[in-house]
């Protein structure tokens, strides 16, 4: 039964920008160094030290903001966000409050249309799914080919530049005792990208994150490595529950009402919103998807038990617990809402001109959405195929383009890249740059396949030989004893077998063409290089001639 509610999700994504040094000082941003070996008086908050803005960090932040279709204000400044925490040595974080460097953008994502008769509720099966079989990104579940997906714009409220805090480590096993603080990360540049609450399901949230990560990769602004904390996600989630009549108590079995594309606040008549919960501690996109699916169901249960609505309980924070696959209430920082922001007197504001923005726009390069469209239009491949290719990153797309150009068949090239090339990359755990067969060499093989002189199955053997020996397609074919069988030889073989099998000839003459297929095995044993399709064709032609 569809759930009688809509899930409303907004995401806050922190990405570490790819700079050599920190945001306000010259300390290295390298990950994994020994604790407290990448600090200086500025980033550990020594009195009298002064921060100076890293130009590259501002450039990368603006580049991302422009790519996210944000408005870039002429004037932007930095503010102090005051709170006490052991990993924040200055007692404040330098962030942006009322004049962020960008606002009001959007990111387009592919969404699967709602199956008819189903509401936008959470799919329960998200919770039960095992790990995805493909370690590379698979296209969003629920759309498997042409014409089954549509796009949706997810609003971006703002993207602003701020500094990271340090890292606190607490050894649970050791019981009580102290927490250890490592300040290597303190002052690392982060771009915080805040989405509108436009996402309507855990799958949509995951799709948004995947598309955002892909965009950041194409822009070259972050390595987005979640394990190393270069990309962190917090989610704000609540439910809009459809109640049959205004003011009725919660009840089950209510017809769902679609709220897609509508602003969630204020809730429409007959809709009750549950208190907003911030979910943290999600260490992968899958964890985000599962945490949100869990949280939606939990909030619905809680609403049924307590009837509590938005505004009747404060916003709470819950942490995702991977082990139990549940969210748990976290102790919130006392008075944490009162950050007493004020402009940082140590930092000069930044003024961005129209010309600079236009220059950034001109330098963006081709972004994933545009690239998908170009591949579809230029090489005649499906949106599904272009999505798979583009999601692998620009180097693989460049390989594909070179291959498609060289062999003159975009679809054939797409099939070979998706099947043979990607499988090999997976098996060998290598990137496309390490793939031994370059596009020109593979194109040579595909040209032979295209001409019909070589079957796909045999061609795969040839590629395997090329991969193992480094030979060219022609050399590998020769080494495998694959030689082209000329027309005369094919015809001779056909005649020989047809003469030996008059029953089959009679069958074909009676209209059962399938009979020829029985000869293919025999023919292949006599000459393994024979092309089955050509053999079949020739046989049928000869039989027709016998009439």
């Amino acid at each position, binding site marked *: 039964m569809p759930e009688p509610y809509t899930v409303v999700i907004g995401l806050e994504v922190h990405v570490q920008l790819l700079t050599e*040094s920190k945001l306000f000082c*010259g300390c290295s941003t390298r990950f994994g160094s020994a604790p407290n070996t990448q600090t200086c008086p500025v980033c550990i908050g020594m009195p009298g030290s002064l921060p100076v803005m890293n130009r590259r960090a501002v450039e990368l932040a603006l580049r991302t903001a422009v790519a996210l279709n944000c408005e870039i204000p002429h004037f932007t400044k930095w503010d102090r966000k005051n709170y006490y925490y*052991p990993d924040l040595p200055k007692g404040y974080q330098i962030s942006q409050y009322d004049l962020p460097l960008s606002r009001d953008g959007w990111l387009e994502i592919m969404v699967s249309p709602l199956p008819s008769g189903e509401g936008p509720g959470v799919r329960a099966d998200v919770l039960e799914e095992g790990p995805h079989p493909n370690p590379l990104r698979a296209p969003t579940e629920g759309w498997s080919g042409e014409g089954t997906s549509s796009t949706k714009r997810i609003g971006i409220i703002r993207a602003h530049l701020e500094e990271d805090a340090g890292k*606190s480590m607490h050894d649970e096993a050791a019981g009580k005792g102290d927490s*250890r*603080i490592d300040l290597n990360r303190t002052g690392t540049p982060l771009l915080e990208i805040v989405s509108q609450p436009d996402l309507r399901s855990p799958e949509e949230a995951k799709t948004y994150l995947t598309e955002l990560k892909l965009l950041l990769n194409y822009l070259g602004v972050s390595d987005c490595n979640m394990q190393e904390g270069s990309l962190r996600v917090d989610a704000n989630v609540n439910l809009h529950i459809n109640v049959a009549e205004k003011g009725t108590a919660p009840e089950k079995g209510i017809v769902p009402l679609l709220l897609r594309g509508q602003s969630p606040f204020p809730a429409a008549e007959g809709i009750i919103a549950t208190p907003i919960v911030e979910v*943290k*501690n999600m260490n992968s996109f899958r964890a985000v998807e599962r945490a949100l699916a869990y949280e939606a169901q939990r909030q619905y249960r809680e609403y049924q038990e307590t009837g509590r609505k938005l505004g009747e309980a404060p916003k709470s924070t819950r942490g995702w617990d991977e082990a139990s696959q549940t969210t748990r209430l976290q102790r919130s920082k006392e008075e944490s809402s009162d950050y007493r922001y004020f402009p940082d007197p140590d930092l000069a504001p930044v003024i961005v001109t129209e010309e600079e923005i236009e220059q950034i726009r001109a330098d963006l390069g081709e972004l994933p959405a545009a690239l998908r469209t170009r591949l579809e239009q230029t090489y005649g491949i499906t949106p599904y195929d272009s999505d798979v290719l583009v999601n692998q990153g620009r180097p693989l797309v460049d390989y594909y383009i070179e291959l498609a150009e060289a062999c003159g068949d975009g679809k054939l090239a797409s099939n070979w890249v998706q099947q043979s090339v990607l499988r090999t990359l997976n098996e060998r755990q290598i990137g496309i740059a390490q793939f031994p067969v370059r596009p020109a060499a593979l194109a040579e093989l595909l040209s032979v396949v295209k001409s019909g002189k070589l079957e796909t199955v045999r061609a795969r053997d040839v590629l395997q030989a090329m991969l193992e020996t480094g030979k060219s397609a022609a050399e590998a074919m020769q080494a495998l004893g694959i030689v082209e069988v000329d027309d005369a030889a094919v015809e001779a073989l056909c005649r020989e077998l047809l003469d030996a099998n008059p029953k089959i000839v009679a069958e074909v003459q009676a209209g059962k063409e399938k009979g020829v297929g029985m000869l293919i095995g025999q023919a292949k044993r006599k000459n393994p290089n024979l092309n089955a399709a050509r053999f079949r064709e020739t046989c049928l032609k000869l039989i027709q001639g016998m009439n």
Partner: protein
Amino acid sequence: MSLTRAEVEKVSLLARLLLTEEELGWMTEQLGAILEYMALLGEVDTTGVEPMAHAVEVSNVFRPDGVQPGLDREAALANAPHRDAECYLVPAVLGEV
């Protein structure tokens, strides 16, 4: 405009200052007097005056993105009240940030 005792209590909590009852009393009075004095500024007619975001008329002060030598660990940890070989030590941080 005057400050209430409750407001001073809240501000002292945010500043991590533990004030006695007596201190709260005179602190409320003195801080209130300061705010009242500052409120004089409210009498200035600011119609048509653009708010300042920064006290200095300087913008776009940057440094190039390059790594500079910082502190070695011993120096960085030198003033820590509690430390071990690698880290600052603080009373247990429980719960998530």
